[in-house]
């Protein structure tokens, strides 16, 4: 029961935060000069003022900022994320379309990065200052320092054009109409390179964090106590140190999960991956504000949920924390 009340409390307190985010985002975005109508007209090579006014009216841009805000908030209240005039589609359907590929890319990239990072960090920390430690540290630093898009471009040159092993871009082989396993295999082949270029950065980060965290825990008194009990080094590491060392990693992973959407814009652009990142970038370029606001709103909700999840995991992991 307490758990449900706690969750309820957290969600209720999250609402004003999200509302605040919507308001601030709305104001922020309207600072960008130019509007969707002028972009559409610009792209069409010519437009009469009447045509532009018709567009502005259609987009509701002719109303005052206050009015636009009121309509926007009332739409949000009815869970209607608004309409993307530029793409002539409902914003929610646009985002849902892109949510699949994005979450696939995020989960594989971030998932493997965190998992592998933890393992590498553990291996490096246990072999402190041995060759293992130095090599892992150096590799993770090089990976951390490599610009993701540059790596992506290089991988395309090597793996798809040079060796022809992997497709250059896209979510799957368009028009090939695979079904079932063939589709999974096809998407998998397209996923490899974008996931690797996105994952490398986070892999390095978590390897370093885990190494520092494990080193800090091995110095603690309870480890000496465990040794005094006659426990083997390996079981001390798995039974005692690991779980304690994971606590800070969970919080940092929570904070970073929110940034995932943004971070992938560059990788999505290089690999033509139909993710939320490029959707947001194009929406910004074409001043498709309804779509952009919806993406910010979605990422804000995602972050609030992730923070909640992190706190719950933290409470489960660490008995000292009560709700």
């Amino acid at each position: 029961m307490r758990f449900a009340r706690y969750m309820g409390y957290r969600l209720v307190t999250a609402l004003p935060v999200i509302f605040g985010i919507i308001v601030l985002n709305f104001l922020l975005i309207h600072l960008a000069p130019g509007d969707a109508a002028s972009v559409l007209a610009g792209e069409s090579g010519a437009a009469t003022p009447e045509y532009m006014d018709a567009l502005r009216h259609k987009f509701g841009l002719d109303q005052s900022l206050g009015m636009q805000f009121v309509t926007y908030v009332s739409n949000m209240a009815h869970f209607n994320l608004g309409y993307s005039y530029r793409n002539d589609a409902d914003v929610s359907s646009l985002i849902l379309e892109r949510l699949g590929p994005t979450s696939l890319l995020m989960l594989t990239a971030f998932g493997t990065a965190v998992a592998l990072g933890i393992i590498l960090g553990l291996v490096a920390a246990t072999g402190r200052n041995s060759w293992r430690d130095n090599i892992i540290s150096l590799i993770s630093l090089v990976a951390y320092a490599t610009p993701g898009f540059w790596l992506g471009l290089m991988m395309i040159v090597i793996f798809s054009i040079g060796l022809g092993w992997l497709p250059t871009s896209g979510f799957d082989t368009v028009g090939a109409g695979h079904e079932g396993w063939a589709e999974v295999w096809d998407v998998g082949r397209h996923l490899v390179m974008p996931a690797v270029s996105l994952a490398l950065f986070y892999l390095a980060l978590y390897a370093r964090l885990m190494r520092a965290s494990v080193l800090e825990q091995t110095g603690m008194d309870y480890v000496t106590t465990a040794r005094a009990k006659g426990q083997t080094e390996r079981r001390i590491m798995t039974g005692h140190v690991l779980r304690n060392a994971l606590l800070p990693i969970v919080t940092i992973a929570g904070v970073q999960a929110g940034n995932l959407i943004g971070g992938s814009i560059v990788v999505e652009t290089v690999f033509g991956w139909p993710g939320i990142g490029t959707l947001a970038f194009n929406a910004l370029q074409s001043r498709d504000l309804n779509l952009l606001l919806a993406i910010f709103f979605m990422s804000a909700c995602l972050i609030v949920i992730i923070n909640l999840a992190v706190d719950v995991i933290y409470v489960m992991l660490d008995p000292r924390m009560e709700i």
Partner: protein
Amino acid sequence: MWAGFARFARNRMALFGAAVLLCLLLLVVFTPVIYPDDPFKLVGPALQPPGGRFLLGTDTLGRDVAAEIAYGARTSLIIGVGATLAAIVFGAVAGGVAGYYRGRTETVLMRITEFFQTIPAFIFALLIVAILSPSVSSEIIAIAAVSWPSIARLVRGEFVSLGGREFVQACAGLGASDARIIFNHMLPNCASSIIAVGSLLIGTAILLEAGLAFLGLGDPNVMSWGLIISAGRAVLRSAWWICTFPGIAILLTVLGINLIGDGLNEALNPRLRER
């Protein structure tokens, strides 16, 4: 302080980082001597492969890629260091005030910090550059705007722990003003962790700048590594060198800065020392 410097010197990796940075700084200082004229100047036939007259070849307009990288180093450092300094100043003040005064001011400031982190960092940077239209200063502001929250959280944590320490209470007992306590006592004592995190931030700032320029949002009048890569990106297949060399330059610089950051961290925070 000398003990810290000795520890730093013993750390082989940190020395390698220092060496890389030293070469970079020398490059930046001597660039006008080595390449006197403007890097944008057309000096040879386009798309010349490396070797021969141009060590690293020429780009799509026939400009010397080596000169571009040399001048690009200056921009990337200016933007990297500038954005980091701005982020440190802004973050330290926000984090410091929140950590020192606690209570309502702390919750308000921390809410603001969290708000900045709800918008995905890169999109937020793009938004700011779009609002201010691309230029070196707008890039610095954008990168600083997405980096200061991490500094704020760090400084707040340090101030909260320092606040409880007895030497701070002793100063309060002497009748010291808040400002004196914050600037003479608390900031110097968390300077070491700020330096360590700050140096890592410079690396991320340079990567962010490259990302912005790669998407065409860099300052067109200023030569930067991101600009060279975005120019070379279209001809990646036929002129691989235009993209490759600036990429390596970014990699080495960020690697060097991180190694120094790690070295500083270990040298200044002894408790992470050999156990």
